């Protein structure tokens, strides 16, 4: 627990230096790129959707490698192909038909993008084709700061910390108190019995000390176990399909939100529908580790109209209302803060204990990300004034009432 606290504290600290970093980054950005850079960043965000089937310089996937596509095709062709490729194929556009046939006749979805959005994607592709790195796009400047403010070494540190934490958690979970508990009980009973009846040990204080020590151990273990009741830290159940986040996220670089796409809109992050799997698995029919067996289960589900029954790993009690949208969309909390490095897991495991103390501590230490930028927070006039006058330096979730019972329990 302590480790995670300090980690969160670091994040909190970052929030404080947000403003100065923001200025710095903006200056950097202005000097290195200009308008196209902005464009490219928006493009990068949009490209996440494309990345399910396309790479830029990474070779063929479901669809062609898009490196240098701006040079290969003219703009108008690209615009209409992105908007409705099927219409072009049906109209008999020679390039479109050829591509369609070449890529196993997998149709590309139609995207209702504006000119500006398509332009930004194309700008991103050309930037990437030239080997330039593009900053992450984020609607809120604060996230930008957080992400880009992180140096490479910090990132590595974070990863190591998370791994350590993971190992520690495993250890904690595996620790079995049961022998200690029963031995203590036995000693306790024996000492009491001896003290009262047999009087084998003449020096009474020995018995007393044993009773006190074993008593403390028994109580301590009982309390610990009682607190852990109903918690599922380390829970890692078998799933109906051997699905690896490591393969999908780490190797294939699929964004979390590609599959869990309701995370910013709803209380549920959302499990992907089988049809969503088919976007890629229409073509990818064989996995490197499991062969055809696991992927075939998706086809099986769709053919037999039998939904896939995943086992939920992260469970909250019924009396807790938790909204993903509040945390990821408004709070800009990274998925990994609660779920850990899922991209390294073949089988998902619950790392945080999801206890109330864990929630409440985070609310105490995390700053309200959009406090300055989101108009909603204008309701909090008093806090804004205090912030301005320097009476407070930061606004935490607790300050705006995030730890009130009825924010999560109703």
């Amino acid at each position, binding site marked *: 627990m302590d480790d995670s606290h300090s980690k969160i504290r670091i994040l909190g600290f970052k929030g404080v230096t947000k403003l100065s970093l923001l200025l710095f980054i903006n200056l950097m950005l202005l000097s290195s790129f200009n308008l196209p850079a902005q464009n490219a960043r928006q493009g990068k965000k949009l490209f996440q959707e494309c990345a399910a089937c396309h790479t830029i310089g990474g070779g063929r996937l479901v669809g062609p490698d898009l490196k240098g596509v701006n040079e290969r095709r003219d703009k108008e062709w690209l615009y209409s192909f992105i908007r409705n490729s099927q219409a072009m194929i049906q109209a008999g556009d020679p390039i479109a038909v050829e591509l369609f046939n070449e890529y196993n006749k997998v149709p590309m979805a139609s995207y209702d993008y504006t000119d500006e959005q398509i332009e930004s994607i194309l700008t991103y592709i050309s930037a990437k084709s030239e080997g330039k790195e593009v900053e992450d796009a984020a609607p809120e400047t604060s996230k930008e700061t957080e992400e880009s403010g992180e140096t490479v070494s910090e990132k590595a540190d974070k990863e190591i910390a998370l791994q350590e934490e993971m190992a520690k958690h495993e250890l904690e979970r595996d620790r079995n108190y049961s022998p200690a508990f029963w031995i203590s009980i036995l000693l306790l009973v024996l000492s009491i019995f001896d003290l009262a009846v047999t009087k084998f040990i003449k020096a009474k204080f020995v018995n007393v000390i044993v009773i006190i020590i074993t008593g403390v151990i028994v109580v301590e273990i009982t309390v610990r176990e009682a607190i852990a009741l109903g918690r599922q830290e380390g829970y890692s159940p078998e799933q109906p399909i051997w699905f690896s986040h490591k393969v999908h996220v780490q190797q294939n670089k699929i964004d979390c939100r590609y599959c869990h796409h309701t995370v910013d809109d709803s209380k549920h992050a959302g499990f992907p529908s089988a049809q969503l799997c088919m976007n890629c698995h229409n073509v990818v029919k064989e996995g490197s580790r499991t062969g055809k067996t696991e992927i075939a289960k998706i086809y099986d589900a*769709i053919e037999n109209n039998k939904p896939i029954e995943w086992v939920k790993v992260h469970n909250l009690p*019924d009396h807790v*209302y938790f909204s993903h949208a509040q945390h990821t969309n408004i709070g800009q909390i990274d998925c990994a803060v609660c779920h850990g490095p899922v991209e390294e897991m073949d089988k998902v495991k619950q790392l945080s204990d999801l206890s109330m103390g864990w929630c409440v501590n985070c609310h105490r230490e995390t700053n309200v990300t959009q406090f300055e930028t989101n108009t*909603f927070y204008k309701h*909090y006039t008093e806090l804004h004034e205090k912030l301005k006058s320097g009476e407070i330096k930061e606004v935490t979730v607790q300050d*705006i009432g995030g730890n009130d019972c009825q924010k999560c329990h*109703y």
Partner: protein
Amino acid sequence: MKKYWKSLEEHQEIKNKGTLDKKAEPEFSIDGLSQEEVKGKASRRDFLKMLGFTIGYASLASSCEMPVRKAIPFLNKPEEVTPGEANYYASTYFDGKDYCSVLVKVREGRPIKIEGNTLSPITQGGTSARVQASVLNLYDTTRLQNPFENANESDWDSIDGKIKKQLQEISSANGKIVLLSSSIISPTTKKLIGEFQDKYPATEWITYDAISASAMLEANEQSFGKAVIPDYKFQNANVIVSFNADFLGTWLSPIEYAKAYARKRNLEDSKEMSKHYQVESYMSLTGSNADNRYKIRPSQEQEVLMALYNELAAATGVQTYELIASPVDVEPIAKDLLKNKGKTLVVCGSNSLKSQLIVNSINHLLGNYGQTIDMNNPLQTIQGMDKRMYDLVDRMNRGEIAGLITYNTNPAYTYPEADKFVQGLQKVSLKISLADIEDETARHMQFICPDNNYLESWNDAEPKPGHYSLGQPTIQKLFNTRQAQESLMKWAGIEGDYYLYMKDHWESDIFPKQDQYSTFEKFWVQSLHDGVFALRQDEAAQPKFNKPDLKPDNQPKGNGIELLLYETVAMGEGRNANNPWLQELPDPISKVTWDNYANVSPKYAEENDLKNEDLISIQKDLILPVLIQPGHDDHTVSIPLGYGRTSGGRVADGIGKNVFGFIRNIAGNMAYSGNNIEIKATGEKYPLALTQSHHTMEGRPIVRETTLKHWQQDPDSGNELHDKVEKQHVSLYNTPSFPNFHWGLAINLNSCIGCGACEIACQAENNVAVIGKEEVRKRRIMHWIRIDRYYSEDSDNPEVFHQPVMCQQCDNAPCENVCPVAATPHSNEGLNMMAYNRCIGTRYCMNNCPYRVRRFNWFEYANNAKFPYNMDNGLGKMVLNPDVTVRSRGVVEKCSFCSQRIQDKKLKAKKEGRMVKDGDIKVACEQACPTEAIVFGNLNDKKSRVSKAFANPRNYHLLEELHTLPSVGYLTKVRNKKSIDAEVKHESGKHE
């Protein structure tokens, strides 16, 4: 000081001593407890038992493994569905009598809540308790899951084959087929019935309404040549006179009328309000809201009407009739009516031709046609002519009917001579019921072809000409049922499904009538989205009035004890009897749940030595408990209809008694009254579950009132105490401050009519448990919002006050500082929070709450076979709101100001990057209210509606002298009557 009281016992106290020193009843019932238990003494054995149980339970809990929870995603996710977010679909509620345009809240494919549709020009976003509760009917385990043939499960194909064959046989043998239904307002269904008749020309369609208005249809036929129910415009009426018409609760189109009525009386934008006279025999919801109320026997109605007519006729120089002595002095009524000619409305709820003709004449004299009554835009929701039904039963008994199809009607229960109907059925060869449960009628049928619930069906409606309303399915069919219309289509040999049939009808018949949309697709999509579509209508001249002959006929005068049957707000004609929410809804006036009873007046009870709950026999066979109803006529006994179902489902069966049998046939119309009734006390008692004295407030100034005249002179009138108390607010503690949001609720007592829609809405929204009659008797009802009903003055004809009370969300909450485990602290938004997971059930908070709004879960009400209502089975639990915790045994619960809605709308504002606007957040009771009596909002926003209400001089708080600083405010009740006891004005400031 004027005294208010809730029960007759209390009233007696006031009369005897002038003070109310009677102690409040013990908070919890001690029924069935031993003496020792009552004293709260536990023996050593009990202690050991409890200790053992605790240890055992704890060890059991610790050895339990966590359940494996599944997450099952869609195979192919529909675009518009986001798990965790609700979708709303516009639809139409029509149960054969009540029409309401609704929005259905759907979560993960399950309809869980009904809201009013604000786009509807008729119901304007209002709902009623029945509409709110209708969602639970969908998840009723009593619903048939398959078609039946001779009480054996069957399948559609074989049933269809047999039915078609028989229909053809009857048709070719020139036999008579009758389609018997309640009123149908669906234009497409009407067209379909036409096509069915084309296929089987021997088919006759008969409409039968169990609670009928056929006399009014007949009267309008005579007076105007149009057998219609006119459009009543209560919003245009300065003076309303109602004779036995419960237009706010049950009569014709109560949601619409309540809305119009309250707008004219809320005193928010206007300094004027309408004046309402009610002349009636029993205490109706409408009567309880009247400014002036007169009691008459049912048989005296025509005398009073004639007296009023004569008075008006004399004043306007029209022929008068021979005068019969009227029991009511109609002069003040006539004066008010004449002063407001053309801006008045006289209505009558009796199903008596003569009464209706007199009322028509009165309205004609007053020039109300074209002003407050529109004959050209009639209400079509009640169409049944009783004569045809009487005739049908005779024909059935004569063996003239070969085939009978019943649709949405249950004559074996509602028909006055149900036995005769059932006998007649024996002589019908083909008997088909389209009921969705095996009701009293369906039991006698050869085929039962179960209809879908309305939330599973496509439908349309035309409640008024040119006002179209669409219904769409919001869930996949739960069972192997089939929409009634589709069954008719099958039998008539029409291919396709009803959806396409209806769409075609709209394209060919309705689309050409409008000029707003250029293509049908646009028109259809928009109408489906809005749920309603209204054609532009031209003003037309009112039809010519044919003056009827009003010569009094020598009708035998009513004598002896008279009987009146009436419809209650919850139960109606008994269609909703299997809905546990409605069964447990306290009647707005009597506050009785789970039963019907015989209402008598206090005077009658005194004379005959009757007490509440005494059993009496009425006409020998019917035995019912007595309920002494203040304001009831002394020579009348009145009984609610809709109870005593024998095949209504597991909740409905055996509750109350069926009194449809008392309906008399007077000149072909069903009369819901009788005379020379013989009543005898049986000497036995029958317990009733009343909620009225559960939470007494001991005579403190809870309701505050004034008259219009006083209020116009002094807006503080009746509420002088408020300013006095405000000045005295001194505290040792810091004044609580809520700088960001401060949620508040304002209730306008002038708008609130006490209909109970909010109670059911709250129950649906917040997963409030139904606990059953026995538990209600033990004062354990779980409703988070209750409507207190107070009487004032004389018990013979008291004034009635309705006051909704929910958690007052006190800024200085007394419940908070007595909780030993801090389970109920205060939020930074001014809410008094309740954390169920923290509560250990000491109930200290309940004892310390002066408003009695906290509820305790004495049992596990969910998943418990001992509470067989809706939460004991998987189907019934589908109605639960997934955003609200289902409380378990041993915790306290209470109104949360719909926290889930506040949080939801705040998050929405955050996502959209804007501030929360006033009106964004609507709490469930506010949204359901047909009269806009409840307003929720942010008190920090000085422009919000709730802030404006709090700044109104009429605003006061409950028990404000306790310095609890509630976040709920009430606006004083203003009555438009001539005088109020002078002492009220002067003395209401004093507190005893």
